[in-house]
């Protein structure tokens, strides 16, 4: 890994991470403060006034009664997928394809650093920054919960949900990174790097709408983990761990190998 490049990459991308984190914090604090251990019926009644298909698409048909399952079903079914996905798509595109399109990659490669070192540094930045994002979300979840409802959050299962979602995002960012390495223009890199994760996202939402559509979820990466089931302890966790890890490993490795070998129009 190249420290100078890592520092430079952090400098030009941290603001995107901060914005994404700030938006996520806003929603997290709202959702936790909505929890009312005495009056879950009130929340249910409010939800019933919303269009049912929309609520279902966002995975809000079953709400947990404990704080942990409440937060997880409200927050991790939709918002914690959408915002880190936006981050992955934007940043992955900027890390490789944007440098190639603009030509600034020529300056990086005109220094005594191998292509491999440069592409691995960029990949590590994406992986580490997503890890940090989830670490902060996890810590913020604990802090908000402890302030508003001390002792209510089951930290063990909350950690598990965060870890499994993080693994999922190693796979999502890997897909965007792969296309960023494969294509020489940001137009194509974004078309596929955003298109594929967004397609998975839409399929996941569709599969939640009605039971007869639930088979659609088999085609979506995001259906691999069901946060609420994980909290309730009846999900097959091994699949939620192994499959995203394999996809992440394959996409990042393939991206790195392709970039190392391809012709660069710079």
């Amino acid at each position, binding site marked *: 890994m190249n420290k100078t490049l890592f520092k430079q990459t952090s400098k*030009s991308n941290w603001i995107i991470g901060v914005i994404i984190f700030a938006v996520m914090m806003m929603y997290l604090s709202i959702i936790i403060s909505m929890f009312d251990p005495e009056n879950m019926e009130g929340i249910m009644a409010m939800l019933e006034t919303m269009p049912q298909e929309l609520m279902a698409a966002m995975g809000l048909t079953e709400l947990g009664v404990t704080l942990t399952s409440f937060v997880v079903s409200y927050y991790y079914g939709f918002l914690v997928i959408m915002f880190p996905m936006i981050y992955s798509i934007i940043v992955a595109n900027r890390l490789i394809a944007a440098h190639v399109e*603009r030509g600034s990659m*020529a300056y990086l*490669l*005109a*220094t*005594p650093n191998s292509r491999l070192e440069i592409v691995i540094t960029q990949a590590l930045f994406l992986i580490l920054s997503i890890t940090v994002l989830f670490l902060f979300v996890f810590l913020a979840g604990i802090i908000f919960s402890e302030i508003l409802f001390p002792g209510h959050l089951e930290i063990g299962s909350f950690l598990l949900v965060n870890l499994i979602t993080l693994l999922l995002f190693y796979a999502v960012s890997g897909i965007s990174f792969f296309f960023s390495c494969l294509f020489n223009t940001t137009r194509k890199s974004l078309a596929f790097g955003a298109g594929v994760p967004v397609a998975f996202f839409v399929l996941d939402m569709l599969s939640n709408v009605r039971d007869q559509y639930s088979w659609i979820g088999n085609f979506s990466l995001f259906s691999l983990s069901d946060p609420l089931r994980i909290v309730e302890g009846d999900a097959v966790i091994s699949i939620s761990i192994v499959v995203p890890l394999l996809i992440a490993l394959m996409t990042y490795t393939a991206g790195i190998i392709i970039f190392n070998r391809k*012709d660069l129009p710079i």
Partner: protein
Amino acid sequence: MSIIQVENVTKTYKSGKGIFDISFSVDQGEVFGYLGPNGAGKTTTIRQLMGFTNVDQGRCLIRGMDTRLQAEEIQKFVGYIPGEIAFFNNMTGKQFLDFISQMRKQAKSRTAELVTRFELDVKPKISKMSKGMKQKVALTAAFMHDPEIYILDEPTSGLDPLMQKTFIELILEEKKRGKTILMSSHSFEEVERTSDRAGVIREGRLVALEDVNSLKAAQRKAFIVTVVSSGEVELLQNSNLEISRITGNQVEIIISSNYDEFIRVLTKCSVKGLDVLNQNLEQAFMKYYGREAEKNE
């Protein structure tokens, strides 16, 4: 000793353009001019030398090392200017130069000297700089680590005439210090002033590989001679000089190496004006660019 070797390199793009069976070498301490109009394949060749692309056939070596496989090692002693100006967004000139120095783990530096020499203001953001200023940043980045070998893709594009002169002086100094330089250009004058030898590329093929003096002999210059009377126009027409155009008393004459004869004929007329017509590379080297030069007229 050959420092840069290009051996039978072919690289074809999907469009059918590319470079075909190019071979040349640059010796230690030599300045090599790589001449060609835009789109002829200069940058394609330079990309190979920088290890950005894979050859279809042949190979490129710098100091005996494969430019594609050992780029990391080669970049330790190469200074490079890309053909297109492209930097990092939102960096000031100073931040960019510092960043590149750090990426090179560069110990010695003559950045300050070059910045003064090019009258470069490094404080503004690069995105706010003019084209000429950006090119000066690129020049500084290529020269600041005092490399042994320079690979310069159209290094003077965007520079004003005064800076072009400063640049040429710098090249001549580096040459004196024994540096090996390959620079591409579409201006023969620039190559003439700096280079020992030159390769001329046309549509991806090397059409000439000669020392600059013999290229100069092949160069065609156009002069516009204004004479007093139509009788003198006739006199010029009846001479052996090649005349390309006559407008009133103005006669456009093409000279390649027959300057002597040109002067002798002119002494017989009363010349009112004598101008050199600016020509592009294709017109100056009709010998190599026959078809394209006609197209341009």
